[in-house]
């Protein structure tokens, strides 16, 4: 939020792309950019740690280690040398979800470079979400789509893994293919959902709904107040007493 609130706070030096700025110590890297005078266009999306627009790499003087974070989620630290990597070119396989199978062949066909993975673990070390990227890549190479999907689920697709991969692989796109394969072909489909879709299409609720649409506000309020509420702690098998509108 606007910067007045933090004015009186302690200032710390940071180096944005090598240039020194003094910023309040409680700011996230993203807000520090703004405090320093940048108007962000790239590198800023949700501001809440989920869109992956703000991948950032930084380093401290005297340290060999490259650190990573999401700019919107990482609080500044004194003397960090940082830059954002808001865009990195990536490969994107093209596939028709209806025509593929959840197998290693599918993964390799869409992303042949998958097999170049050296299992060097650089990707895992560069993940700001603490995802075991190398492990999901290993699962991908074994054709274990379920494991690939499960391990990569929290991926925000910021691209830092891809930026640093010595084998030039685009891990996060392989991961989303894996998750989609899992969601469509491996996870059991919801029968109750299919049944409901059929019921709706057959017009089962048509009359009751049209009835509601013609009901006046007072009567609607009455129906609303009388709704039977499923108890919060009820288990899956709970059913309401009144079944006339099911």
């Amino acid at each position, binding site marked *: *939020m606007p*910067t007045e609130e933090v004015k009186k706070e302690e200032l710390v030096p940071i180096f944005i792309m090598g240039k020194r700025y003094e910023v309040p110590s*409680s700011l*996230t890297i993203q807000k520090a950019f*703004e*405090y*320093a*005078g940048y*108007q962000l*266009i*790239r590198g800023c*999306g*949700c*501001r*809440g*740690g*989920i*869109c992956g*627009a703000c991948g950032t790499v930084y380093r401290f003087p005297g340290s060999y280690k490259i650190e990573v974070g999401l700019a919107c*989620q990482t609080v500044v630290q004194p003397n960090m040398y940082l830059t954002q990597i808001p865009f990195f070119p990536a490969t994107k396989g*093209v596939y*028709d*979800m209806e025509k593929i199978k959840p197998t290693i062949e599918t993964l390799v066909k869409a992303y042949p470079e998958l097999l170049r993975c050296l299992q060097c673990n650089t990707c895992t070390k560069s993940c700001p979400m*603490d995802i075991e990227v190398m492990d999901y890549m290993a699962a991908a190479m074994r054709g274990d789509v379920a494991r690939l999907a499960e391990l990569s*689920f*929290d991926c*925000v697709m910021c691209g830092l893994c891809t930026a640093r991969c010595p084998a030039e692989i685009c891990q996060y796109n392989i991961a*989303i293919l894996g*998750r*989609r394969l899992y*969601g*469509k072909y491996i*996870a*059991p489909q*919801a*029968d*109750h*959902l*299919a049944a*409901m879709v059929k019921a*709706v*299409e057959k017009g089962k*609720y048509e009359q*009751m*709904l049209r009835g*509601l649409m013609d009901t006046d*506000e007072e009567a*609607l*309020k009455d*129906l609303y*107040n009388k*709704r039977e*509420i*499923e*108890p*919060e702690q009820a288990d899956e*098998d709970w059913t*309401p007493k009144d079944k006339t*509108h*099911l």
Partner: protein
Amino acid sequence: MPYTRELKELIKKVEATRSARIEKKRRGEEFHLLSLKEREERLKKYHPDFKEGSRKEIRVGPSKGYAISPEIVDLLEAKSRVNPDFIDLNKVTYETDVLILGGGGAGTAAALTAQENGAKVLIATKLRHGDANTMMAEGGIQAATKGTKDSPYYHYLDVLGGGHFKNPPELVYTLVTEAPKVVAWLENLGCMFTKSPEGRLMTLHGGGTCRKRMHCAADITGAEIMRTLRDEARNRAEHIKVLEFSPAVELILNEHGHCAGAVLYNLETEEYSVVKAKAVVLATGGSGRLHMQGFMTTNHYGATGDGLILGYRAGVKLCFLHAVQYHPTGAVFPEQAEGLLITEKVRGAGANVLNIEGEQFVNEREPRDIESSCFIRECTEIGKGIPTPAGKVGIWLDSPMIEILMGEGAVKREFPGKFILFKRFGIDISKEPMLVYPTLHYQNGGLEYNSRCETSVPGFFAAGEVSGGVHGENRLMGNSLLDVTVFGRIAGVSASLYAKEKAKDGKLNLDHVRRYHRELEEAGIITDRVAPMLLPDYSNPNVREHQLTAHYLGTIR
């Protein structure tokens, strides 16, 4: 920042009442729900919408006299970013069948169905494809999918009750009957919904629901939907082109009065360009970044209400915009997480909300506007809020209860995103409660449209948060992801049909902008404000003072 010593002391009061509250939960005893009459009283007295100065009448345009947030009125009573006389509409940079403005959930869903209907599609969006409120939705998506206890009938009633019975019936009908179909559509696209080993979709309660019908993908439902839709759009890149960092700044009409394109602004090269299209879908989302009444917001960076301005200038009326949605549970501690949404699912999973004494004061499943009003009441009139070190106040959200009710590890399993985030700040939310306060969350109203997503301007369609009606005066959780997928899909179909069958080629013009400018002048509104805003202004005023040669147009340099 971990909790301070003072706050840790206060947490002891929460712990002191916890086991009794757990017992109550287990027995199914709930804090009483307010009656409709009590609800109304709370709203009128404590909801920010009813505060003095929270509404102002619009002085021009099709909804002249309608009173809404002054922040939006100021943008409506502003000039175009472009002088219509400076733009050569004969120089068309892109031509397409269907132009979609906004690459969020609604826009991307529309792109997919339009393409399936044979249309050539162009999506123009402000930031990256998918940088959108859709990406941020956590809690879930509503749909009646369990026929043994639920049906569209109950869903319909819930939507209406949430919306204060003002919602146009036809829109609600469409929403609730399409709901199971879009969940099936998403499942078929490969969305990883949370399911039992047998494939039964997990469903939870949300505020104002009478049946558990909130489906989720862990605590990142919106991201899962958004990234799946985006991946699918990218698979069809041959027919669905995407222009990023290219927000629309004006709609273009043609000599027949049909919508026939838009003027785009390249945020990087600062060029304006003309897109000619046979039909246009507006899906630019909400407006939290206007910070109504100075509230913090959960919304993404680009949520500046642009679509409202574009549509309004072209002649589309506004509705339900007088009601702004505040989400009851935005983080107020630590400072770095301020405004960040704590999903309603946390309450759905069993966490109580508590005052400084560790006492319950409201049922945790009231509709959002009521819940927020009760929080504000507790913190103001009753004076039992919890003060934060930054001088704000909050309410406890007792997340450790979930751990006790659902078993050890439940918080981390059900809310991995939030768990990690708070962990980084030194707070373990499976052991310590969270501090929350209402935060600006959702634009309940917007441009008027019908169940085919048509607006009053031929060839111009609206879908998603930018539109108003389906949620009446207050949206229930989980009905917005539903709204954007249901109406996004419909908009795509309607627009592609229109492009095929009804679109009439004609000379492009921006006469509506000229007329609007004239109307502003006639109303005595002399201003240098420009709209749409495009990006919020978070630049540092001290720095600005030294930008001696910089020129700002609105918020943008």
